[in-house]
Structures are given as C-alpha cells and as structure tokens.
C-alpha cells in the first residue's frame, strides 16, 4: 500500500518574509531576452559581411558592418584603392558610401572637389528625398565639411510631413544625430515616440515594424544614436527594449548585405549606448550541479555575446521547487576567467530542482537584469538493506530473509507457489548525504528466461521511506498468464536527478502457478497483420411469389372486364348513335392517342416529356371533344 510522502514545511518567519519578497520581485521583473547573437551567430554575421564586395554600396555595408561588430577589416589599403576607383563625384549616394567607408578605415582620405561639395549642399532642401538629405548630410559630416544644422532641421521637418513612412523617419533620426548639438533637435526627437507607437506587438514577445527586420533594426540604431547625441533617454520601456531585441535577433541567417548591416548596427547600438544595455544570462552547459561538478557557471553577456566584465552577479534567492524552502539568499557569484561561478554544493542541497532568482548589478543601464533560472542538483543513489524472503501465507512470519548487496546476485533462487508470497524490501539512499530518496521510477521486473515474457511492477515506499514489494502468486497469476518457471528479478531505479540509474538483476525466482496451461512462447501481438476480409452482403432481393400465382391473379383481375361487357350487352348499350363528324372522329383519335401516351410514358418517357406530349394531344382532344359534346347537347335540346 502506497502511503503519501510528507513534505518538509517552511522553516521560519524570517525566511518566509524573504520568500514573499523574492516572489514579489519575481512578479515585478519583466521579460528576459529569448534571442540574442550567440558567438556562432556573430561569426556567421561577420563572414557574411566579409564577402568580397563588388560595388561601393556593398563596400559600405561590409566595412561599416564589420567595424560595428568590432571585427577587423582586412587590407585597408586595398579597400581604400577600391573606394577611390569606384567613386563617382557627381552622385550623392556614391559620395556617401565612399565617405562613410573611408572614415571607418584608417589612412584613407577622399579628395573632395568644390563641385561635389556644392552638390551635397544643394541636396539639403525640402525638395530632395529624405534619403538624399541623409546621405548628403552624412557625407558632409564624414568629409569634415561644414553643415548648416538649422537648415537641415528645417528640411527634415518639412520632409517628415511629406514622407511619413518608417524608413524615411529613421533616416531623419540618423541625420539629426550628425548635426550640431546646438540645433533645435527636439521636434525630430519626438519622432522616436511616434515611431515606437507604430511598432506591432506580437504575443507580448516580439515588437517589430510590419516593414520588416531591416526597418526595425535601423530604427533601434537611429533611436539610440540620436538619444546618445542629445543625451536624453529614449522613450522606450524596458519590456519594449527586450521585445525589440527578440525581434531583431531571432533571425539567424540574413538575406542581404543591407539586412546584415542593419542587424550589426542594432547589435552595436544595444551593447554600447548610454541608456539601455540588455543583458543575456545563461548557464554554461546544463544548469546542473552535483558532487563531481559543484559549481554553477553562468555566462553574462550583452546582446552580442560580449561578456560584461564590470557586472556583479548575485543570487537574490533560491528555493527548492518541491519544498519551497529557501536555500540561498543574496549569494554572490565570483568572476573566473570570464565566467561567473558559484559553488552551490557547499550549501549541501538535497537533490532535486531549485528556482534561482539572479540579479546582475553594477551598471544602471542594464535592462532585463533579473533572471529566473531553474537549477538541477543531481546525486547518486545506492540501494541499501535489500532483503528478499519467501513468506508463507498462513503465517506472516518470513521463513528466511536473504540479504543481497548491490551489484551481486543472490546465490540461490527463491521458490514461491500459491501458498507463499515472495517479498522484497529495500531502501534507496543518497550516496553523499545518506538521506533517503524516493526516485520517480522504482520498478521490479520479472523476466521469464524461457518464454521471453516480462511483467513489471511498481515498488512503493511506506511512510518511513522503506520500499516494499510483495508478489502474491495466486493473486497475480493473470499477469503471468499462469506460466510457471524461473523468472529473473530485476530492480530498476531511475530519476531525472540521479546520475547513476540502476538496473540490477537481484535474484532468480521460481514461480509455481496452479492451473498451468501448456507454456507457449509468447508471440508479439499480431497488430499489423492483414485482417480477415469482409465480404459485402448485397441486399437480398425480396421474395417474389411463384409465377403461377401471379399469372392466375392477372387473369382473375382481367375477368371483371368480361363481366362488364356482358352486362352492357344485356342492358342494350350500343354505339348506334355514333355520328361521323370530324370533331367526333378527332376526339376519339385524340383520346386513343392519350391512352397510348400513358403506355409510352410507362415504358419510355419521363414526366416532363409526357406532359409536353399530353399538352399537345390533350389540347386537340379537348377542342374536338368540346365541339362534339356541344353538338350532342344541341341534338338533345332539339329532340
């Protein structure tokens, strides 16, 4: 009989207070990032950006993208030569790409002529597109040429009214970030809030523009770029920042250089701005500790997987999931070679699962710095006091108890017939602490060596955590199909928190059943064998009477007609008054035709055709009949 386990209760009021506080904190904390750029992702992004470039635009994306990721651009001189050779001084786009790319690599100066400068300055007007204004202003700024900031602001404000789409306003934000701080950038700064309102919230996890990944990533880059420039916190809530992180970094392969560049820019912006730095906390390897692996190791990085060396990581609280008792409170992690470590086993936790609330502090910019982590403590189990005995049913005292030690097998086999029960008792203890364990899986398997049949039972612990298993041969004979013989007895112990699951052949048991059937080898259930064919039973035709009977009755039914003719003859009915006028003849012909139509209807036609013919014949017959009867009436009146 299984008895319910008693759980240990919460310990003291003080701990209870901390427990409630940690729960409140857990409720107060917001989202944590589901996606970020792991080191392989960053490597992939870098290799995409390092591809050989074919024109100035791809050179711009490659060079600037790699710079933002902190990677080195190979062979600066060759890149510089390429840029200079591809430069078209009359095109704003060309000058923009060349200027920005050359600024990123050292020792590359683009010569600028007066015409180029004039073209760039002329682009700053409300008649140019937003892209042109952005590129012109950026090029001027990169080339070190003076820019009339207030004019630019005026042009941008006018353009925002005309071009209301997301990419245009993002370009405006980028442009404003290149202007002098003395200019009136407040109006453009407000656009960040307007754009934030246009983001789509997907399931509370993602926040993105319907225009796609590139628009979202460039918006994030531009918003933080401008906010850093004017030193005002962007109006993005922490949850929104995390949702943006999820949207931007959920895609792990990028379709175009422009998309890759936008992701790299966003990653750089989010790891290095003055206001919001999202933190990504994950366990290195599985979040499991045991005696052989006593330290819990955490990686604390920004969205680009760069470690946050200046951070302090501590466990605010940790409690056991099963018992809810607090085991850790404000325990700090130590930084060891870029990884944060905590020796959890020193607190000697019992095996099981623990919920950790981890806080990352040390920088006011950190976002999503409270993380919940589930940690598993695993241990090794040992079977102790394994006692096997055969108990007589009449007396409850065991005849002989044999102790077996793991992993050896009992020397002699045990015999149990219908008068006896086979009993087994044991304890499962934690090897390191000696505490009794109740793993999820404790099975006793009996395997018939000859027939291959196996029967599995569950061993259940009593209130003192002592496992007992009893096999009543008479009661259980249906499970065994009453097949007597030698069965190997195995003990199976397993659990998610056990490092050493046990499969132990404890002993051999000879079972004797009454009413034994001839032992047949157990065949695998024939589930997938073709089943017997079903023969379709067609509807039986109804029983018809023999033809003789039908024919007799047909004749019988015809006979009254004969009687009718006889009676009419006797009454003196005749057709001597038949007048041969055309209407009479026509009427009779028509009437006969109608009767013939009835027969044809029965054999060949359907209702619609019949009605059609009936209408024609009937019409004729009616007219003729009308005539004929009128004549008869006249004749009757006259006579």
């Amino acid at each position: 009989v299984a008895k319910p386990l008693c759980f240990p209760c919460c310990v003291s009021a003080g701990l209870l207070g901390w427990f409630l506080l940690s729960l409140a904190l857990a409720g107060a904390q917001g989202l944590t990032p589901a996606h970020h750029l792991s080191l392989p992702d960053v490597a992939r992004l870098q290799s995409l950006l390092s591809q050989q470039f074919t024109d100035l635009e791809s050179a711009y994306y490659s060079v600037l993208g790699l710079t933002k990721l902190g990677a080195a651009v190979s062979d600066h001189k060759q890149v510089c030569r390429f840029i200079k050779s591809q430069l078209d001084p009359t095109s704003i786009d060309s000058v923009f790409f060349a200027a920005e790319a050359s600024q990123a690599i050292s020792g590359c100066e683009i010569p600028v002529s007066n015409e180029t400068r004039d073209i760039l300055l002329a682009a700053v007007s409300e008649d140019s597109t937003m892209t042109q204004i952005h590129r012109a202003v950026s090029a001027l700024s990169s080339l070190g040429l003076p820019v009339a900031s207030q004019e630019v602001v005026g042009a941008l404000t006018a353009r925002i009214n005309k071009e209301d789409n997301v990419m245009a306003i993002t370009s405006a934000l980028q442009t404003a970030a290149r202007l002098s701080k003395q200019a009136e950038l407040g109006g453009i700064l407000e656009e960040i809030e307007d754009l934030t309102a246009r983001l789509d919230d997907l399931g509370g996890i993602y926040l993105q523009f319907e225009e796609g990944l590139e628009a979202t990533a460039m918006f994030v880059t531009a918003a933080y770029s401008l906010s850093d420039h004017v030193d005002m916190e962007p109006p993005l809530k922490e949850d929104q920042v995390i949702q943006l992180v999820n949207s931007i970094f959920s895609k792990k392969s990028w379709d175009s250089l422009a998309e890759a560049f936008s992701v790299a820019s966003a990653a750089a912006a989010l790891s290095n701005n003055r206001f919001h730095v999202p933190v990504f906390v994950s366990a290195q390897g599985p979040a499991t500790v045991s005696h052989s692996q006593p330290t819990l190791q955490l990686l604390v990085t920004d969205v680009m997987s760069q470690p946050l060396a200046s951070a302090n990581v501590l466990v605010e609280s940790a409690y056991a999931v099963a018992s809810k008792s607090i085991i850790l409170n404000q325990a700090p992690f130590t930084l060891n070679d870029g990884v944060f470590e905590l020796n959890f086993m020193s607190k000697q936790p019992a095996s099981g699962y623990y919920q950790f609330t981890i806080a990352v502090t040390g920088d006011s910019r950190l976002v999503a710095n409270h993380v919940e982590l589930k940690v598993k403590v695993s241990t090794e189990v040992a079977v102790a006091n394994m006692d096997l005995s055969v108990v007589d049913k009449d007396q409850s005292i065991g005849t002989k108890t044999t102790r077996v030690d793991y992993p050896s097998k009992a020397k002699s086999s045990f015999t149990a017939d219908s008068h006896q029960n086979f009993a087994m008792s044991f304890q499962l203890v934690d090897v390191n602490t000696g505490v009794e364990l109740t793993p999820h899986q404790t099975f006793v398997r009996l395997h018939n060596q000859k027939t291959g049949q196996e029967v599995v039972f569950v061993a259940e612990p009593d209130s003192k955590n002592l496992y007992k298993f009893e096999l009543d041969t008479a009661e259980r004979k249906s499970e065994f199909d009453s097949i007597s013989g030698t069965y190997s007895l195995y003990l199976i112990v397993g659990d998610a928190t056990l490092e050493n699951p046990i499969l132990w052949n404890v002993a051999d048991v000879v079972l004797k059943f009454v009413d034994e059937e001839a032992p047949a080898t157990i065949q695998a259930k024939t589930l997938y064998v073709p089943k017997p064919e079903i023969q379709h039973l067609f509807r039986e035709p109804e029983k018809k009477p023999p033809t003789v009977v039908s024919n007799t009755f047909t004749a019988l039914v015809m006979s009254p007609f004969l009687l009718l003719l006889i009676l009419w003859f006797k009454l003196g009915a005749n057709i001597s008054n038949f007048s041969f006028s055309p209407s009479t003849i026509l009427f009779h012909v028509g009437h006969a035709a109608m009767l013939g139509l009835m027969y044809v209807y029965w054999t060949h036609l359907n209702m619609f055709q019949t009605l059609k013919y009936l209408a024609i014949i009937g019409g004729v017959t009616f007219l003729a009949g009308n005539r004929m009867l009128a004549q008869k009436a006249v004749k009757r009146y006259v006579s």
Partner: protein
Amino acid sequence: MSNSVISVISRFLEEYSSSTPNKLKVVDAYLLYILLTGALQFLYCLLVGTFPFNSFLSGFISCVGSFILAVCLRIQINPQNKGEFLSISPERAFADFLFAHTVLHLVVMNFIG
C-alpha cells in the same frame, strides 16, 4: 328475420330495374366492374404480400379513383338531380369526367413503376 331481409332486397332490385334509366344502369355496370377489379387486387395483396408496394398502390388507387369519378358522373347526369346541377349539363359532366381521368391516369402511370 331473414325473410324481411330477402323481401327488402327483392323489392330494392325490382325498384331499381324499373325506375332507373338505362344510362344510369350502364354507369352502374361500370361501377361494379371497377369495384370487382379493385377487390381482386386487394385480395391478391392480402394473399401474396405487398411486393412491389408501389405497383399495388397505383393499381388500387386507380380503381378507387375511377370509382369515385364514375360516382360523381352518375350523380351529375341523374335527371332527378337536375335541380342541383343547373349549370352543369350532362355533356359538361362527361367532359369533367374525362379530364379528371386524364390526371388520375397520369399519376397512376407515374407510380406504377
């Protein structure tokens, strides 16, 4: 008792043969014929079973319908009922009889299967 029944019947037959016009007797003979045909069909159904049911129904309804229409014709052409059928001449009655029969036979033929 049986005496009075027999005398009633013989009296009825006498009255019938003397006072009924010939035309009506012709129609009466037709009625008897229809009646017998219908009765025989019904007897067959009772003896052998209703398969095929639709054919039995159409045959039987044909008899019943014809009987009813013939009775209507007889009522309408009876000279003694002339007062009640002033607007309907015997020819008109006969024409109605024929038209109704056409419709009846259309239905019967449809149902006979």
